[in-house]
């Protein structure tokens, strides 16, 4: 009997303690103006920064935010979102694990008249008041402009494209060509599926076919890192620009092997999401698509 009682006492203690660590102390006003945020994972630095941006901006604006972590499981995300809806949030910010699987949850929130904002990944179905993601078009323009500035007008450039048809491929390519079609000479453009190994192979072929190539723009860092290897084995000094700002790429920039990466700003993305949520609560209308600025990372 003693054992059982001590077990129960410990259980109460643990749950009480941990719940105390949360922000539930003032659960009285939870129905007014609380924002729910469902993040896809916290196992990836990008999404940790996104969450930090949300938390900090919530603090700055004096808003209460409930955060749930789907651990990359779309089924858990559906559970998390129904929990948030049950606990009475007034706006839902969702960073979907999967654009298709999130649709039923968005529709559920629509059914309860809770406005939904998506961040980084969009939802295939359901009504969303705003979608917040990096401004890929502008990022492509920035990459092309950087090559013009650093390598020179009419420089001969190769373009490593992402998965054909993917939104990032289309938008980054479009932005790049907005500038490059006038100011640069694009001698080769081929897809390497956002993959490092394919980036290496495709870039090797490009350099073989165009020995006078001066620069390469890759639609993501993985392909850019592959292209670095290709340039190295061809014994050439190529000005390579990646996209995303991954840890590997920023390290390569520091080492001097990668000329630059167009970095996404997840923390800023979180901040903007929170600002948008505040506007939605206040009844203001918001833009359906809110682009987030990128920044050029060079040595």
């Amino acid at each position, binding site marked *: 009997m003693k054992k*059982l009682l001590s077990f129960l006492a410990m259980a109460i203690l*643990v749950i009480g303690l941990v*719940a105390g660590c949360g922000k*539930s102390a003032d659960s009285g006003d939870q129905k007014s103006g609380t924002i729910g945020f469902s993040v896809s994972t916290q196992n990836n630095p990008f999404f940790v920064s996104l969450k930090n941006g949300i938390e900090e901006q919530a603090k700055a604006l004096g808003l209460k935010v409930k955060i749930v972590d789907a651990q990359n*499981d779309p089924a858990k995300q559906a559970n998390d979102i129904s929990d*948030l809806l049950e606990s009475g949030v007034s706006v839902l910010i969702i960073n979907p694990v999967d654009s298709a699987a999130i649709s039923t949850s968005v529709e559920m929130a629509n059914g309860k008249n809770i406005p939904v904002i998506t961040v980084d990944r969009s939802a295939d179905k359901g009504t969303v008041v705003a979608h917040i993601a990096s401004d890929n078009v502008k990022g492509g323009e920035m990459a092309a402009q950087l090559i013009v500035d650093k390598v020179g007008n009419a420089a001969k450039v190769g373009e490593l494209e992402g998965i054909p048809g993917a939104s990032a491929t289309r938008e980054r390519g479009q932005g790049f060509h907005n500038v490059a079609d006038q100011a640069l000479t694009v001698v080769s453009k081929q897809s390497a599926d956002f993959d490092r190994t394919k980036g290496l192979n495709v870039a090797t072929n490009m350099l073989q076919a165009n020995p006078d190539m001066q620069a390469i723009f890759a639609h993501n860092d993985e392909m850019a890192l592959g292209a670095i290897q290709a340039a190295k084995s061809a014994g050439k000094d190529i000005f390579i620009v990646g996209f995303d700002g991954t840890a590997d790429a920023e390290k390569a920039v520091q080492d001097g092997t990668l000329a630059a990466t167009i970095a996404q700003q997840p923390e800023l993305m979180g901040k903007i999401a929170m600002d948008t949520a505040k506007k939605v609560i206040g009844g203001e209308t918001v833009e359906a698509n809110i682009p987030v600025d990128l920044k050029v990372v060079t040595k």
Partner: protein
Amino acid sequence: MDSKAMQYVRKLGPLIGLIILFIIISVMNDSFLEFSNLRNLLRQVSINAIIAFGMTFVILTGGIDLSVGSILALSSAFMAQLIVTGTNPELAILIAAGAGLVLGAINGLVITYGRVAPFIATLATMTIYRGATLVFTDGNPISGLTQDPLFHAFGQGDIANIPIPAITMFLAFIILWFILSRTSLGRKTYAVGGSEKVSYIAGIKIDRVKVFAYALTGMLAAIAGAIITSRLNSAQPTAGTGYELDAIAAVVLGGTSLAGGRGHIVGTLIGALIIGTLNNGLNILDVSSFYQQVVKGIVILLAVLADRKKA
């Protein structure tokens, strides 16, 4: 100390734990006990509970099944592909359940006729089935399945305000409770886990009992997968990753011994409810997801410690 009353209290341990959890969470947040949240909770619990019911049979025979999450994903992908290519969705659910049964039976056959330890055998099939899912789906989710209302209802609908997944869970519970407590197959399941030697001498066909347990678990994992697929209206290649651990935790929380031969499916239902209540309650209480994992682990540990003296 070991009076009859004491044993009774110990048996009720998991239920008492669940009730205390309910009281704590509802005191801290009043939206927890609202009817709509209890429905929500039942819907969430049903998937883990259905898998854990099968896991109870396996663990009672002294085995373990690590492949349930992979079976769930493979059968879901198969079902989604059937639906996308025009098979009647309700028929596809039945075929998926059959596929799960076969995948589970393969586990059972490897373990019995192949004489491979259950942990190793299902560790291998867990990897094989997951790999097969990725090959089959090419790593992409299968989405845009169907507008069929019956198929949607399977994961999202309600009957008389009770979520259909919860009804499926209770039906499975009643059938399996009956098999375990009222049939010779149930008695044999306990006997095999209690002592294989004695079971053999008693003339029990041990291999058949074991193959049944794994095949049943495979089928239940596939049914859980069909519920998830209906709920998300898409089949994910990574679905069910880590679900074996939640199912094992539910079985252990319910007081079933990992050594086999002792425990019951009633406890498993309560165990699954405890895990589901923790997930739901800690979300509602806005506890950080990092702490949530710590709490779940501590609760499992405490339950096992409290259970130790039973044997």
